[in-house]
């Protein structure tokens, strides 16, 4: 068992998400930075899709009621195990009774805690991911609260300490152009790509609202509902874009400015309220190259870990 002492801003159980249900209005959910989650899982010998704890911003505290092995990845929240600093990208043994505390993320917004063997959690539609808006998944369908008991299987064997590096960070988020360019005119795309946008505090796992001074993207278009997905950039009539994240709805009637390329969605999801972001339109080839680079990063990790275990 892990006891939640302080959940911080938001703490949820996630995996790689719920797929194949969007036509029923069911969101994908799942870790917003799946690369950080996968790397953390691999460091403790888990399958990529094992349930993890997603920590938002920090200010959280967990106590382990049994021995295990953990790894953190994603935002660095200056975590300490019984007062001793531990670092993202490494695995650590944990003894029964130890407390893990998180301060505040200096850079990035979400951190992933992988526990050896994962979390013993009932899957809903083949996934343990917590869908907060719909109220299912995780332990209770809600974010973790103080005093919640997260069931895990104890592990007190030897486990080699392992480290792994994260994919390179980016400051510019790359975007596919949207299907409504004719409707919105070229000025809209130009303004969007030439503007430094700020992440609004009214952002959550469903979507990130972006704002800027002297916004020139006001419009009155309303469209027949079309499918939207994580990474879709919807343009609201006020001119403020909303970038959908994993808990976002499945259909919407706002024009789309574009879609964040698959390789950059996890980078975007690490932005916190107040952060600034710049977008750049790229072509399909660039998006594919970027995705292949990320895939290669994970592939190298697989090989490295295999060599480690042989030695």
């Amino acid at each position, binding site marked *: 068992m892990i006891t939640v002492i302080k959940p911080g801003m938001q703490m949820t159980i996630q995996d790689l998400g719920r*797929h*194949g*249900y*969007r*036509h*029923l*209005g*069911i969101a994908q959910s799942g870790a917003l930075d799946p690369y950080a989650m996968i790397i953390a899982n691999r460091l403790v010998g888990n399958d990529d899709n094992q349930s993890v704890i997603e920590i938002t911003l920090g200010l959280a505290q967990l106590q382990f009621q049994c021995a295990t092995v953990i790894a953190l990845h994603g935002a660095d929240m200056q975590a300490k195990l019984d007062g001793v600093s531990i670092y993202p990208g490494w695995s650590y043994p944990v003894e029964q009774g130890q407390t893990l505390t998180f301060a505040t993320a200096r850079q990035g917004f979400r951190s992933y805690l992988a526990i050896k063997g994962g979390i013993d959690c009932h899957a*809903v*539609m083949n996934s343990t991911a917590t869908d907060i*808006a*719909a*109220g*299912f*998944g995780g332990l209770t369908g809600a974010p973790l609260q103080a005093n919640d008991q997260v069931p895990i299987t104890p592990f007190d064997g030897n486990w080699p300490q392992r480290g792994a590096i994260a994919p390179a960070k980016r400051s510019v988020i790359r975007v*596919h152009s*949207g*299907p409504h360019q004719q409707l919105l005119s070229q000025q809209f795309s130009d303004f969007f790509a030439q503007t430094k946008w700020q992440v609004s505090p009214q952002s959550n796992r469903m979507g990130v609202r972006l704002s800027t001074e002297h916004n020139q993207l006001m419009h009155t278009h309303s*469209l*027949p*509902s*079309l*499918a939207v*997905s994580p*990474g*879709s950039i919807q343009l609201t009539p006020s001119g403020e874009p909303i970038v959908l994240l994993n808990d976002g*709805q*499945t*259909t*919407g009637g706002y024009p*789309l400015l574009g*879609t964040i*390329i*698959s390789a950059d969605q996890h980078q975007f999801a690490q932005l916190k309220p107040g952060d600034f972001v710049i977008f750049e339109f790229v072509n*399909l080839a660039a*998006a*594919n190259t970027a*995705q292949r680079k990320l895939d290669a990063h994970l592939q190298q990790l697989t090989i490295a870990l295999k060599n480690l275990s042989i030695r």
Partner: protein
Amino acid sequence: MDQQTISPTISVLSNNSILLDATALNDDSLSIQKKIWALVQQCNTSDAFIDVVPAMHSLTVYLIDPTSLAHWQAQLALWWANINPHDYQGKHHKIITQYGGDYGPDLDYVAEYHNLSLQQVIDIHSQGHYQVLFLGFQPGFAYLHGLNSQLHTPRRAQPRTRVPKGSVAIGANQTAIYPADSPGGWHIIGHSDFALFDSENTPPCAIQPGDTLQFVTKESVL
């Protein structure tokens, strides 16, 4: 037929998703949507997709393998050209509904707005034959086609913070059933115990895009 000579726009949304947009076609609204459902059925015969999501006169597919994007863009166009709107037959559902009173606090308003009696509103609503256009907004929320224009009612000026699960409601030219408690600006005219969505059921939603349904009066609570 006209619709087979006029093509929808098929565009790439991302390196693994394609949008087929038929919103610009000059055709009967329902027959375009029927082709969309038939196309969904066709797509579901393949295991190439993570998700196949119909919406209003459009369809978006999410591919497992991004390298097959160009192939599927061409394939969707080919399928569309050869699909008949009547190639899809959905299920029919009877939604047993209690109208008015505590079950439908806005029935009086809707009747008054249209200068109809409460019974007339119930009759018009329950005699309708509705098509499930697509699902969205929240799990199991079905967008229905077929509300009689006599009942089209502008949304409430003040949306409710909580519309109870099972509420049968009217908003503008649409009617729907709320699958879960949620905020909402539609007029609640009745209630149904029909379970639209249960995360533990397989499949979790009783109603699918392309199905048909009717509201059946259980008893009028006037």
